[in-house]
């Protein structure tokens, strides 16, 4: 009985997480832990993924068809769910990236002239 069922508003942060995940996956298939680690490593630990929200996000993106997932055996012989980016996801990534670039450019300009 899902009594506590409320609609959530999409927030800016969620969009960012999508972008980061898609970008990570565009470099090759990866499992959840790998995605989180990669983001942290590349951003010099500045961006720390809230791990609890990573999996719902992955699930949601899978539903949206941007990424696909399979259970596979990893190199060290463990079962893992490997995510890879789909064609729709690639398109989405390009759009998001452009949006992001525009946004950062704009923010940068504002900061410079302020």
């Amino acid at each position, binding site marked *: 009985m899902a009594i506590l*069922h409320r609609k959530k508003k999409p927030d800016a942060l969620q969009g960012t997480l999508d972008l980061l995940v898609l970008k990570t996956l565009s470099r090759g298939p990866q499992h959840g832990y790998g995605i989180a680690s990669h983001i942290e490593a590349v951003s010099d630990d500045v961006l720390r993924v809230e791990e609890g929200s990573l*999996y719902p996000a992955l*699930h*949601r993106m899978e539903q949206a068809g941007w990424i696909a997932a399979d259970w596979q055996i990893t190199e060290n012989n463990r079962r893992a769910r490997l995510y890879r980016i789909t064609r729709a996801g690639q398109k989405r990534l390009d759009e998001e990236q452009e949006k992001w670039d525009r946004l950062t450019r704009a923010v940068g300009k504002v900061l410079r002239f302020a």
Partner: protein
Amino acid sequence: MGWLRRLRGTLVGSTAADGLDEEMQLHLEARTREYLERGLSSEEARDLALKRFGSVTLAKERARDADTLRWLADVGQDVRDAWRQLRKAPAFAFVVILSLALGIGANTAIFSLLDAMLLRTLPVAAPERLVRIGSASAGDRSSTWSYGIWDQIRQHAPMFDGAIACSSIERFNLADAGGETQPVDGILVSGDFFSVLGVRAAAGRMLTAADDARNGAGTPAAVISYSLWQRRFGGIPHITGTPLVVERIPFTIVGVAPPLFFGVEVGRAFDVAIPIAAESLIHGKDSRLNEAGGWSFLSILSRLKPGQSREDATAALRGMQPQIRAAAMPALLPPALQRDFLNQPFSLTSIAAGMSPLRRTYRRPLLILSAIVALVLLIACANIANLLLARATARRHELSVRVSLGASRWRIARQQLVESVLLASVGATAGLLFAAWGSQALATLVSTPGRPVVLDLSLNWRILGFTAAVTFATLVVFATAPALRAMRAEPIDAMKQRDRDGSGHVPLSSGLVVAQVALSLVLVVAAGLFVRTFERLAAVPLGFDGDRVLVATVNLYRTGIDPAARLPFYDRLVERVAAVPGVEHAAASIVTPIGGNSLIDVVNLPGEAPTMQPFEGGRLSPRATLVNYVTPQWFAAYGMTIRAGRDLTDRDSASAEPVVVVNESFARRFFPNRNPIGATFAGLTPPGAVPVQKTVVGVVADAIYDSLRDEPVPAMFAPLRQAHVGVPQHISVSIRSAAGSPTTVAHDVASALTSVDRDLTFSFRAVSDQVRTSIRQERVIALLSGFFGLLALLIAGIGLYGVTSYAVSRRRGEMSVRIALGAPPASIIGLVLSRVCRLVAVGVAIGAILSLWAARFVSSLLFGVRPHDMPTLFGAVVVLALVGLVAAWLPARRASRIDPADVLREI
């Protein structure tokens, strides 16, 4: 295909969240390992990993929220919940589903009949272009035509996209030899009947124009129905070429009609179709084809050309009218009528839905029945609404708890709705099954042995749509109030230990009960009127005693006896039958009581201007009389009393003075205040002939001639030997048995008939069956309305009981205080009853007004009872009051036995 996977996940009840568990577990393990590698203890590593991850449950919850088809899963959950709730209250579920199944089923069954009879189009190609040729002044009652007219229209058929003719359904005897008949329903059709209708054979071929040529060579062709193929021939594959004897004439089966094709008459179906031309082979000199008098027996249909309007076609046909009419002028038509005949304009009526005398008979009864079943469903809805309201009230506490825990009101109302929808769907499904059985049973109920009613009652989108619409309407009526009530649940209610105010519930329930009582009263009054109509009809004095009379309809077709030799032959037949042991009297006649036929003549008294018109405005004129031609002993066979004068005797031969015995109504009408014995009069006389004067020799008591509903009408009985209408090829022999059931002598009578001529064909029927059959429709209506009236009473009783019980349980505290203060049990009972009495009184008052208003719609179906019959209304009121009293008595008595100490302990 993401949505497919999502859908599967939703339906199976497991979302991707299941795999999520393992995945997150793996993540935590990996993180723990990482911390271990950094040198933390295993416990610290695990703790830190968990801390960093956050709430696992919340993550899962969010992942589930991501399912876009989540609502579907919720509804699925609601359905499962509703199912569980209903399983917990099986008696409630049973009552609701049963009443819905009965209500929806009855409505669907009646609608199926209405649909088959009134709405469905003929199973032929382009039925919308079919029209029937009628006579503008005659309306649709008598649009049958003589063979002469058909022959002319056939020659002018190119003005249409084809023209066809057919007889109405007749009985054909398929017996190979003499003896008892093997009757089936048959039809005479023109050669291109099937091709113009666009009906293709299921096997072999259909008839062609060549089959319908008069004086054609070889054995004539016949087409049989699919049903006869299965029934009589076991569906053998090579049916074409099989011989088939129809009325002693050998035919050859050339093909089988498709299964669903019944002809163009809705409600009847043919088993054998033969060409119209073959009729002359069967009836020889008596053929309707040669009939110079222009025997009207053919319905003529034509198909409009594509794009041709009915007005254009009518104009074209009327243009041809003078030639057609003139060429088909019946030779025996009196000159006075010839002009009328020539000038009667043709008219065309659309018959896309077929033609049907059945429609006229059953239209009103069916409409009234559908109103009755609609009311029953409405009463059942009121009851279900009340039951659901009571349940919703009982669940108030639970609902309030859920509201305070954050459930949305819409969600709670939705659950209530899902429960209602579940109930309605199960009820509707059961109702459809019930309807399939019920409509067939109804069709059987209105069939009579000689006239089976055959209707295509298979399901179609109209019926399914109707059922769906009725179910939806039902749902709206019974589910709205409980769902709204559920939405009103307040968190504060959860704080109260027990719900004591139940505000708003009582007025609504009371309103529903009043409506139930009012509608039930209407149904009980209707049932009363119809049952009394049937009783009155069954009690109509017949004027004859038919209980011991068997009628043998004897047919000479096969014997080849010369018309001149028929009379002596009939005499011999009657003599032989009368000699059979166990037979008290035997007599022959052309017409038998309630036999479905009548002969009509006019009475031209000496000195009056002679009339040749037995009808006036579609009814018998005051100068008309019914006629029958009988042999001596006929009155004795029916136990009819001669009031004055003498009976007909053997001396009243063809050469003797023409005589008649008249009934009392005849004597009163034509010889008021004088002795009719010895009086003379003349009847219908062919043009140019000298009128034959008949002398009245006796007066017989009034008796029913054709219908129990008829007022006594003048009738006269002439000796068969003096029959100026000619002696027909078939005759009815009425046989009175000495004792007991007349059917016991049937076997011996059959051998006696066969011993006179073994080529005779005959069939038997008991007069008492005939009487019963004639009031079958009234019986069916009385039965059904009675059944539904009782059902309505039962439902209303349950409703009253429920509401009273509920009120009593709510006022337990008040009652116990009254009892503790010394109120006697009788006053407590009075308190409860007075409330119920008010409800019943209001309901009855409204119901009485409704009944009086609605009575006008049934008046044409009543007999011997007025629509505003006060005893019936009063009786219905008493019955409802009694039901209300009983329904209220039980809870009232329970209230009077409340132990105040018990209530005190509960507080």
